[in-house]
């Protein structure tokens, strides 16, 4: 850690991990209801569990993006953070808003559109905090060095803020409501968040592989170009069945198929840089996440997305467990693994120790990642059976669900394994620093360390 203010990231990472833990808790509760439907039915209805699960994900990922930005910006801009106090203040506001929303949900205080359930005043606080964050990081950038990494990152964050404004627009016409709702939801996760993802990944690869910045930054522009060229019109795959014109069927099918391209490019990018790299970075665990993230994102977002994106397939699979399967692995691969990778990379430097608890961290990686894959497989099987029975044969919804019990039990088991993996990771991040050398890792102790 070259710059003192990079440590601003630490409380962001801590809050993010606390909310991540809660997200898993609510996920486990909801998965339990799928297995035993009467579980907590009177105390906490399913919709409260689900809104908590999804909102916690969004909030902690955003806090994770903020922490990652505060961590890398000084190094990239060669400039201390404009105002660390402003950073702490905006984190406090954001965390308060998130916590207030979460507590409010338990008492039925919410708006009613999926993922945008935060009460109006919480949305206002989130907006204020995010603008403070953008101001703080943009000022740092303006004073300092501009690189493709920090420019693309800030562009992604600013555009995320711009599209967020559609959350305040709730037309009375349900079809129009859905049309613009996707301007937040799709343009975030299949659009501008990919700018954030690619630039953070590029940063990790520059630091850990030692490959020339020029090469990595050229790749970065190609990848984010592919992301937006495909992702903007790819929104069309959400416009098939909501009352929009039929031209979205060919447009959405073609462009959302192309959405696989940026994810594939990220896999090739990460592995090529890894093989070309001359630097033998001591943080093997961070390297594992940097390679794992694009790989799982490619399968979760790319392959599982493509599986049901063509309009004539989606006509049957839309809104089944297939969607749930895709949603879980896509978010995990693209964004959860990204933040966990950044934290894995940054924590030893923030704590000013050599990479530590690496073996445990890598166990956490494998346990959690295989559990998420297994969860995705069970939901995919459930979705295929559901699609056939309900959409092809025309069986009643509840009868179909009765046929899926086995899959839901296996999903709950996978969820428990995810929780075990998460506990390992949390201990590896925040527990006592005990240096461990991975097998065959003698070379790694010769690495130069804090780069």
């Amino acid at each position, binding site marked *: 850690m070259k710059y003192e203010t990079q440590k601003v990231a630490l409380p962001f990472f801590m809050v993010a991990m606390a909310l991540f833990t809660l997200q898993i808790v609510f996920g486990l509760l909801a998965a339990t209801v799928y297995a035993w*439907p009467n579980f907590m*039915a009177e105390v906490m209805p399913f919709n409260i569990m689900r809104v908590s699960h999804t909102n916690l994900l969004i909030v902690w990922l955003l806090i994770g993006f903020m922490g990652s930005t505060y961590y890398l910006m000084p190094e990239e801009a060669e400039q201390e953070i404009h105002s660390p106090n402003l950073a702490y203040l905006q984190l406090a506001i954001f965390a308060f808003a998130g916590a207030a929303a979460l507590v409010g949900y338990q008492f039925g205080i919410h708006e009613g559109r999926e993922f945008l359930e935060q009460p109006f005043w919480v949305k206002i606080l989130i907006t204020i905090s995010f603008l403070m964050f953008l101001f703080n990081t943009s000022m740092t950038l303006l004073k300092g060095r501009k690189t493709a990494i920090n420019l693309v990152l800030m562009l992604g964050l600013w555009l995320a803020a711009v599209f967020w404004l559609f959350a305040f627009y709730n037309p009375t016409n349900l079809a129009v409501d859905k*049309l613009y709702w996707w301007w937040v939801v799709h343009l975030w996760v299949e659009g501008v968040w990919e700018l954030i993802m690619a630039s953070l990944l590029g940063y990790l690869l520059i630091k850990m592989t030692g490959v020339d910045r020029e090469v990595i930054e050229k790749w970065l522009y190609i990848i984010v170009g592919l992301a937006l060229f495909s992702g903007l019109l790819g929104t*069309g795959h959400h416009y098939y069945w909501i009352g929009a014109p039929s031209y979205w069927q060919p447009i959405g099918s073609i462009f959302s198929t192309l959405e696989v391209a940026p994810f594939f490019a990220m896999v*090739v990018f990460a592995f090529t840089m890894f093989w070309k790299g001359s630097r033998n970075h001591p943080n093997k665990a961070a390297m594992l996440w940097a390679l794992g993230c694009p790989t799982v994102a490619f399968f979760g977002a790319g392959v599982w997305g493509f599986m049901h994106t063509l309009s004539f397939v989606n006509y049957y699979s839309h*809104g089944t467990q297939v969607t749930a399967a895709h949603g879980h692995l896509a978010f995990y691969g693209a964004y959860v693994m990204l933040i966990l990778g950044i934290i894995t990379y940054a924590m030893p430097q923030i704590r000013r120790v050599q990479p530590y608890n690496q073996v445990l961290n890598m166990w956490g990686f494998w346990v959690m990642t295989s559990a998420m894959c297994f969860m995705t497989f069970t939901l995919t099987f459930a979705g295929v059976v559901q699609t056939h029975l309900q*959409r092809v044969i025309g069986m009643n919804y509840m009868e179909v669900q009765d046929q899926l019990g086995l899959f839901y039990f296996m999903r709950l088991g996978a969820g428990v394994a995810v929780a075990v993996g998460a506990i390992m990771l949390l201990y590896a991040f925040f527990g006592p620093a005990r240096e461990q050398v991975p097998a065959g890792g003698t070379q790694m102790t010769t690495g130069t360390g804090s780069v």
Partner: protein
Amino acid sequence: MADGLTKSAARNIFYGGSLFFFLVFAGLTAHSHWYMVNVSTDSEGLTDSVKHGKEVWEKNMCINCHSIMGEGAYFAPELGNVWERYGGHENPEAARAGISAWIRAQPLDVEGRRQMPAYDFSDEAMSSLIDFLEWTDGIDDQDWPPHPAG
């Protein structure tokens, strides 16, 4: 890949191309907005009661169990076409009574069956909610879902 491409060329392609695709997307969205208001939905039938019904739908966060036109949670049945499922096209009065009675009967307390909570809707709120579901069923959505089952 792309050895002949310089970094600044890649950057310009990214900015120029993204702007181009954004403008196309925004234009098509504007047309879709027009199409929804004028062609695929019943703008005249979008009464105060339907609007109020959407508020009831949102206030009770139905979306985090049910789905509507395929979007939402996947824990409870699709409601975008519930009007059709209750025979609303043939006998609107019976569909109205059926949906209302079903909601009023919750929770069913059947062991091992997913349980919908009790909602203490006023008659007016119930009527608006059903108006909203009827209006939604009337959206021309390319004949989705494939079966009345939802």
